[in-house]
C-alpha cells in the first residue's frame, strides 16, 4: 500500500538507469534532503549538530570500509591508519604550503589511496583472516612511521594544528558551518558509492567477493580490481581523516589508533555488509546510540540508582546497553540494520494483504 511498485513503467534508458526508480523513494529522498539541509541545522541546537557532524564524517569512512569489506570481500583492520595518512598529508600541505582545503582534501585522499595500494598487495596472495593480520600489521607500521618521523608528524608531540577551512574568505567555525561542510562530503560520498557499486568496477568487486576463481574465469583481472578496491577504500578513509583534521583543527595520530579501525568494522558489520544504506545506518548506530543511551540513563536512572553516583553508573551502563544492543540486532538480523530495513519495507509492499 505504501510501497507500491506496480504501475511504474520505464520507457527510456535514463529512467532505467535512475538511482531511485520508484516514485516513492524519489519523493522520500527529496523530503529527507530538505530535512537535513534546511530543517535540521535551523531547528536543532548546536550540540545536536555536533553529533550530526561526527556521524557525517563517520559515514564517509564507513562507506570506504564497506566497499572493501562488504563489496569486495577483503577484510581490513587497518582502516584508521589510512585516515591518519590522509590527515597528516592534508595537515602538512595546509601548514607548510598554506594550501586551501579543496586541494588538501583530495590530496589527502590520493595519498591514502597510494599507500592503500601498497598495503593491498598482500591481498593478492592471502585471504580471510590472514589478510586481516596483514592489514593489522599495516596499521601498526603506519602508526609507528608517523610517530617516529618528525618530517611527517611535526615533532615529538606528533600533532599539527590546522586552521579552519575557509570558503571565499569565510571561516567555517561554528558547528552549523561545519555541518554543511561535512554534510556536503557525506552526500558526495553516498552518491558516488551508490553509482560505483552498480558500475562495471562495482560488479567486478561483487564477483570477486562471491567467488574469485569464477570471477577470474569470466575475465575479471583480479590483480587489478583488488588493488582498485583498496585504492578507492583508502581514498574514502583518507578523505574521512582530512575531515576529522579540519573538524578537530589538529592532526593527531592518536585519534586514529587501532580501536578506531575496530569501531569502523563494527559500523559496517552492524549496518550491513555490502550495502550503502548499511554504512549510513551503522555510522549512525555506533556514533549516536551511546549518546542516546547516556541521555536516557541520566534522565531516568535517578529512579533506580543513587543520583549522586549516577555519573559512574551512566558510564558503565552505556557500555553494557550498547554491547547488548549490538548482540540483539545481530541476533535478530545477522545481515545488519540495512536488511532489517529491507524486511520492513517488504512487509509494507503487500500490507495489508500479506496473506
Amino acid at each position, binding site marked *: 500500500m505504501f510501497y507500491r511498485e506496480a504501475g511504474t513503467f520505464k520507457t527510456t534508458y535514463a529512467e532505467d538507469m535512475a538511482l531511485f526508480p520508484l516514485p516513492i523513494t524519489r519523493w522520500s529522498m527529496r523530503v529527507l534532503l530538505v530535512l537535513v539541509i534546511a530543517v535540521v541545522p535551523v531547528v536543532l541546537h548546536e550540540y545536536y549538530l555536533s553529533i550530526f557532524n*561526527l556521524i557525517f564524517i563517520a559515514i564517509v569512512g564507513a562507506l570506504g570500509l564497506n566497499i572493501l569489506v562488504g563489496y569486495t570481500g577483503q577484510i581490513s583492520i587497518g582502516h584508521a591508519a589510512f585516515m591518519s595518512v590522509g590527515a597528516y598529508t592534508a595537515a602538512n600541505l595546509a601548514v607548510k604550503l598554506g594550501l586551501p582545503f579543496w586541494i588538501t582534501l583530495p590530496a589527502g585522499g590520493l595519498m591514502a589511496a597510494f599507500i592503500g595500494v601498497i598495503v593491498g598487495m598482500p591481498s593478492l596472495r592471502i585471504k580471510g583472516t590472514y589478510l586481516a593480520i596483514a592489514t593489522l600489521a599495516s596499521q601498526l607500521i603506519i602508526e609507528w612511521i608517523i610517530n617516529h618521523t618528525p618530517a611527517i608528524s611535526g615533532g615529538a608531540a606528533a600533532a599539527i594544528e590546522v586552521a579552519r577551512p575557509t570558503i571565499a574568505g569565510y571561516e567555517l567555525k561554528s558547528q552549523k558551518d561545519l555541518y554543511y561542510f561535512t554534510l556536503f562530503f557525506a552526500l558526495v560520498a553516498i552518491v558516488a558509492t551508490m553509482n560505483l557499486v552498480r558500475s562495471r568496477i562495482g560488479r567486478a568487486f561483487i564477483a570477486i567477493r562471491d567467488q574469485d576463481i569464477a570471477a577470474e574465469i569470466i575475465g575479471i583481472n583480479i590483480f587489478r580490481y583488488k588493488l582498485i578496491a583498496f585504492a578507492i577504500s583508502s581514498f574514502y578513509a583518507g578523505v574521512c581523516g582530512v575531515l576529522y583534521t579540519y573538524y578537530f583543527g589538529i592532526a593527531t595520530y592518536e585519534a586514529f589508533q587501532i580501536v578506531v579501525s575496530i569501531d569502523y568494522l563494527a559500523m559496517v558489520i552492524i549496518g550491513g555488509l555490502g550495502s550503502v544504506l548499511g554504512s549510513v545506518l551503522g555510522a549512525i548506530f555506533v556514533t549516536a546510540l551511546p549518546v542516546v543511551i547516556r541521555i536516557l540513563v541520566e534522565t531516568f536512572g535517578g529512579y533506580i540508582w543513587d543520583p549522586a553516583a549516577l555519573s559512574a553508573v551512566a558510564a558503565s551502563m552505556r557500555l553494557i546497553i550498547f554491547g547488548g544492543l549490538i548482540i540483539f540486532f545481530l541476533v535478530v538480523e545477522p545481515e545488519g540494520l540495512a536488511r532489517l530495513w529491507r524486511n520492513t519495507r517488504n512487509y509494507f509492499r503487500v500490507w495489508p494483504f500479506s496473506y
Partner: protein
Amino acid sequence: MTRQTTAWLRAGALAGSILASGPALAQDKEIVIGAQCDRTGPTQIVGNVLCPAYHHYMALVNKRGGIEGYKIKVLEIDHEYKVPPAIESHERFKKEGAIMTSAFGTPQLLALLKKFEEDKMPVTSPGIGSSAAADGKKYPYVFPIAATYWSQTGGAVEFAKRQLGGSLKDKKIAYMFFDNPAGREPLPLLEELAKSEGFQMRTFGVPSPGIEMGAQILDVTGRFKPDFVIAHLFGRAPSVMIKELKGKGFQLSKVVGLVWAGAEADIIAAGGYGISEGYHTIQYAGVGGDFKVINEIKDMLKAEGKTLGKEFESTVTFNRGVYQGAVHAAAIANAIKAKGGGKPNGEDLRKGFEQVKGLDPSLDGLAPPLALTPEDHEGGGWVQIWSIKGGKFVKTQDWFQGYRKEVLKHVEEENKK
C-alpha cells in the same frame, strides 16, 4: 491498539520529550563545570579514582556553603579515552551552560584546543600534554595547573643529580618511555640537559601497551648499566618495569618514575611494597590520607551515611583529583570577586585562573606552592619526590622546581616554532 503499538508510541513520546527539553537553564546561583572522564577506557585505572575524588571535593565545597554564595554543579561525561565522544561532551557542556572544562587525555585535549579558544572556555589539563601549553601567551585558555612532563623531567634529572653526589658529569642515565607522543615529549629537553650537564643518555622506547619489555630491561641492566633510570610509563607498564628490574637485580633506589608511574595501584600490581622498596616517584600533589581536606571529605560522607568507596585506597590519584578541584574552586572565587559577586563567564574565569595564588587552606601539605600568572599557566612546575620505604610512600624531597630556567627556555623555544 495492540500492546506493541502502545510500547512504540511510548518510546516515541520519550524521544520527543528529550529532544524538546532544549537547553537546560542553569540556575542563577550555580556555576556549571564540565568534567571529561575515563571510567571505562584504557586509562580507567586513573579515571575511576580521580573523578570520584573531584566530585567529593566539589560536594565538600557546596556543603561548606559554595563559593561566594554560588553552588558548584559538576557535569561528567565519560569519553572512553576516544576522541569523538570528547567532542560531543564539549558541545554538551556548552549547551548546559558550563563555563569551564576539566580535560582528561592528551588526544582529547588536542582535538578540542581550537574549540576552547573559539568558545572562550578555560580548560585545565593537570599531568597531561602538551607541555608547551604552559605558555599562557600562546595558549590563553589552557591551564596545565600542575607540573608538565617537562617540569617533571627537570625534577627527575635534578633529583638524580642530588642522589649521585651533586654532579652528573660522565654519568649514565637511561630514559625508559612509553612510545607515544606523551612519552616522547620530554626527549628534546633531556637531550639539552644531557649536553649542558655532560651526562650520557640513552633512550629505551616501550611500545604500547607496554606489558612486554624484557628486551629493553635486558638492554638497560645488562648492557647500558646506567647510574640512574628515569621512567615515563603509563597504565600497566610501570608495574611490569618495577617487577622486571627487580628480577634482574637492579637497585630500585636508582629509579625514578614520572607522575603516571607512581600510584599505589602500580606498586601493588608490581608485587607489593616489599618488591618495590626503594622506588622513587615524582608527584605533583601530596600522597597519603593524612590531610585535613581528606578527613573532612570522609567525615562528610560518614555524616551522610555513605560508605567510603574504593577510590580512597589510591591516595596518589585521589589527592590529584582533590587538588584539581581546589584549583578550580580558587579560580572561580577569583572570578566572582573580580565581578563584584556577579556570575562569571568563561572569559572572567580565565582571568580568575591567571590570579590563582594559594588554595583552600585545608589542602596544606597536599598542594604545591602554586602561583598562576598570565604568562605561566603551569604555576611554577613544582614537584615532590615520594619513595617506597618500609612498606609505604615516604616523602624524600619536598616541593622543588627542577631546572626551572632550562624548562622555561624550552617552552619558549618550542612555542616559537
